[in-house]
């Protein structure tokens, strides 16, 4: 309150005009204090939530942390019978499916953002932006449904046979294709994160001063050259932030991935093989763990997932803030 320059001293109180028909119910200071206290209390809910969330994960995971220590994240045996747990396959699967998704989604999303901000006719901008953002409105479980009954049969029938014929000799496309696979998970994730990356990239590109563009065009650059050499580099940090934000989404995505990735504790380089993600493992096994150690291991998987997404999201925000300072860019995307 002391920071408020226009806060009048208490002595001027009598001069306060009373709104006709609405006498002030509370004294100025009492009302303001109450208002501020209420809002502060509400605002404290989120930090409290974060702290209890973290505390609960650590407490729940403690038996597993004590037992397995740091090697939990790089050992790969997951044997509930013997009580040995290592999360490497899930961590690998989480990262691999997310990176595969980025590989597909980034060109698409940047294409959308660049087209909409730089090239598309004005009348098309709103409809396309709207339709792409609608992709974010489709619930995860609906993506999973579509993945099982449309995408996987399509991959099995039309995509994987030619892919294996040409690239089957590389480790990336080796082995039997079951349907449920890293590839299916990656594609579904890609479609799911396109709208996030596109929306944030678009806002970043819109925030680039038009003088950048005009200067390049004025020097004789073609329209594409202006975009690629002047606009995109200017917004680079923000665009990287947008991509990392998409990565954060992909890492934590649960239902759609669980339904198509094959749920297999194994590390395989081949995208045709089934894999597992941390989120999928939690969905499948968290409420199912019979032994206490198994449950603790599930808590630890949750903790690792949480820490990774927090780091990734924090990086994304800091990068985006550098370009579009302080705004809630992206959080408004559906």
């Amino acid at each position, binding site marked *: 309150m002391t920071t408020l320059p226009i806060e009048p001293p208490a002595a001027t109180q009598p001069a306060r005009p009373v709104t006709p028909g609405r006498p002030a119910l509370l004294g100025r200071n009492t009302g303001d204090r109450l208002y501020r206290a209420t809002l502060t209390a509400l605002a404290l809910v989120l930090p409290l939530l974060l702290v209890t969330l973290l505390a609960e994960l650590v407490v729940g995971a403690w038996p597993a942390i004590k037992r397995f220590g740091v090697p939990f994240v790089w050992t790969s045996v997951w044997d509930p019978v*013997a009580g040995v747990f290592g999360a490497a396959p899930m961590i690998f699967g989480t990262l691999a499916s997310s990176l595969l998704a980025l590989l597909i989604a980034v060109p698409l999303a940047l294409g959308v953002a660049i087209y909409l901000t730089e090239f598309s006719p004005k009348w098309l901008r709103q409809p396309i932006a709207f339709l792409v953002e609608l992709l974010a409105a489709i619930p995860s479980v609906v993506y999973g449904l579509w993945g099982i009954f449309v995408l*996987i049969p399509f991959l099995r029938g039309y995509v994987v046979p030619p892919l294996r014929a040409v690239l089957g000799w590389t480790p990336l496309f080796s082995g039997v294709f079951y*349907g449920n696979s890293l590839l299916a998970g990656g594609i579904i994730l890609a479609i799911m994160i396109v709208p996030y990356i596109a929306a944030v990239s678009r806002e970043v590109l819109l925030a680039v001063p038009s003088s950048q563009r005009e200067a390049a065009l004025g020097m004789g650059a073609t329209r594409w050259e202006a975009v690629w050499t002047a606009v995109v580099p200017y917004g680079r940090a923000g665009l990287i932030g947008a991509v990392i934000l998409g990565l954060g989404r992909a890492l934590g995505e649960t239902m759609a991935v669980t339904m198509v990735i094959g749920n297999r*504790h194994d590390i395989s380089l081949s995208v045709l093989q089934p894999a*597992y993600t941390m989120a999928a493992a939690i969905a*499948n*096994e968290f*409420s*199912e763990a*019979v032994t206490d150690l198994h449950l603790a291991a599930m808590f630890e998987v949750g903790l690792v997932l949480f820490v990774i997404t927090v780091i990734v999201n924090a990086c994304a925000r800091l990068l985006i803030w550098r370009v579009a300072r302080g705004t809630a860019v992206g959080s408004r995307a559906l």
Partner: protein
Amino acid sequence: MTKSPLIAVAAALALAAPARAQVKLNGAGATFPNIIYQDWILTYNQSHSDAQLNYQSIGSGGGIRQFSEGTVDFGATDAPMKDSAIAAINGNVLHIPTVMGGDVPTYNLPDVKGTLKFTPDVLADIFLGHITKWSDARIASANAGVKLPDADIVVVHRSDGSGTTFIWTDYLSKVSPEWEQKVGRGPSVNWPVGLGGKGNEGVTATVKQTPGAIGYVELGYAMANQLPAGSVRNKAGKFVAASLESITAAAAGAMKEMGPNTDFRVSITNPDGDAAYPVASFTWFLLRKQYDDAAKAAALVKFVWWAETQGQSRAAPLGYAPLPKQLGPWIEVRLKSITAGGKSVWTTAAR
């Protein structure tokens, strides 16, 4: 201004409170008996308006865990709880058998007519990843005259904690030393190969949707989905398909050894007997010995006794075997021992 719709929602919720006392019972666990449990619950809810049952088939692992945490009124499992798990909840649990069923190897080979025969070592080696092609000589030798495709075998197993998995791995551990040593038995194990599906439902679906797949599910799931149920060679050397008779025969040996004081936790995989199906099991409700809420306990006991008596006739058409008659009186004694606030709830459960 934003407040008024919220108030409306609150009012609607308040009005929606149940009009009359109806005991709500929540259970969760095994997917193996889910087909018959859903059937029982619908039938029972229709004729008994004083209780409403909700059963969610999350997996036997979940049944044990959530029962132990006290988040459900009853659990269900087809992997009996270990002594250590029972001790952890101070022994406050009764295993009440409900029906018997069989884990069958089911597969997706559209061009193969008739049902395939499996020897125990072939099953173990398929699930260990040693046999990878359907055309393998060892599968062919048990299936003379069947034209097997040169397709890759896709193993499908469970991704959740599962009693069906326990039965399957319990059987494989008994017939294959390599399996016992490398993998062992449990509701969740470290699978050497394969894809994970959630629940009997998920495994059945994955087999159905994946050409060349093999999985293990309760007989009822194969029946309801018109999937083949392979026959398995039993201890006596006979290939036997899962059926009401062969599952009942599997329990015969165990029944001879069981006395009135049994806690019903008995494995009947790989039994003796020419007609016995080797991968069969009881499946159990998990009930507490002492409940806090007398009304709940009474309603629950009443339902369970209904399932043990009238409900048994529903078993065969749905792919399960009814319990041996001999168990009836023993189960009755156990149900009578259930108390709430120190009093038996059997009398108040007025049948």
